[in-house]
């Protein structure tokens, strides 16, 4: 019927209430033909993983500006593994210091897009790693 559509969950873990970045990315992915599931602010890693599993997404984008990324990003990955859903790619964005990025990648975060990254870069990255799509 149709080629597989790329589905991405955009989530805001942690306690900061700034979702402009998440919305910009969501909008860019929408315009690239992806289905974006947006779950809103202040989600726990458990909620994010549960939603990602139910929605059967190809990728989860985590946006965080509170500084808790070194805990929350790896926690999401850990929970995905527990659910046997480690096929879901995890990427991150927000105010993430350069020096934290290698550690996050080590933990399984596929890529981190810091402020100023053109949205096309995120789109291309997901197209390359999630297969299918238009």
């Amino acid at each position, binding site marked *: *019927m*149709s080629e*597989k*559509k790329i589905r991405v969950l955009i989530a805001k873990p942690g306690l900061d209430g700034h979702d402009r970045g998440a919305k910009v990315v*969501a*909008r860019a*992915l*929408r*315009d*690239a*033909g*992806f*289905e*974006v*599931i*947006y*779950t*809103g602010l202040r*989600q726990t890693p*458990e*909620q994010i993983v*549960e*939603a990602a*599993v*139910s*929605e*059967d997404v190809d990728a989860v984008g985590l946006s965080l500006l509170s500084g808790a990324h070194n805990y929350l990003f790896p926690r999401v990955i850990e929970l995905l593994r527990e*659910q*046997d*859903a480690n096929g879901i790619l995890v990427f991150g964005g927000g105010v993430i210091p350069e020096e934290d990025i290698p550690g996050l990648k080590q933990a399984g975060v596929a890529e981190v897009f810091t402020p100023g990254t053109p949205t096309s870069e995120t789109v291309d990255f997901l197209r390359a790693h999630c297969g299918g799509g*238009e």
Partner: protein
Amino acid sequence: MRQDFDDLLTKGRAGDKRAVARLISTIEQGGEESRSLLTQLWPHTGQARIFGITGPPGAGKSTLTNALTKCWRASGLRVGIIAVDPTSPFTGGAILGDRVRMGDLTLDKGVFIRSMGTRGQLGGLSPASAGAVHVLDACGYDLILLETVGVGQSEVAVMETADLVLVLNVPGLGDDVQAIKAGILEIGDLFAVNKADRPGADRTANELRAMLELGEEEKRSLPVLLVSASQGTGIEELCAALDTQYQYLDESGELAKRRSLRLRSELLTLVREGIEQHLLQPLLDSPTFQQSLQQFQARKESPYLWAAEFVTQIKIGGSGCELHES
């Protein structure tokens, strides 16, 4: 492949959300695999109650879905939710944001939520929503809530998939003439006016009631309830009214009638899809058709005659591709 579905179905019935999710994705993907899955599901369906919730954008459908689900969960029912949001006609992309209002339910093991894009389908649902309902039904969800996209006046597809339709309205959208127009307001089995704390809610409810009373053939009046989904007022009453309404439909024979009509329309859709794929698509792809298009454009041939002849060819068993030039 068949074995695969068996395994997923067993897991899905045991409450494994990942298995349910995979099954729904198979349906969304369409094609042969989806067909074979649905065939396998079929004997296990027909158990769940299917409730539709529809109404204009921003009326509070997702918030109400969240509130109603908590009410049903309190009585121990397993609830499946299909929430539809619009797909862009330009890019095919979508923002599916219904979950924002359903955060309370995410971690509940007895609730499954799936967001879907309309993917080009008009009418307020998604091409795969009926199939997804079958998956949830077969996986043992007692109650399935089908939340449509925010609708205008004429998106009534939900009545073909749900047993019962709740039409949600909000104050301030129009007067009593809006209330007697055909379309969305005709498909409600019951009505709720959300945001009851806002001015004008009573008036909106009264206009709806007046509209319902104008109908002569209606044997009994349909309920119109005032609720505030975000504040939780009127939810238990609405929950009870939905149950009563469902029971009425069941006992009066209306439910059986609706389900039989639904089957008929599902079957017709399948046949139509098959015809489109096997007869129409080859025609559209054929060079003969391209040439004829030019002839139509130059007004040298009549598309009306051409179409009639095409249908005659099908009737006598010819294939669309072999249509001769007239």
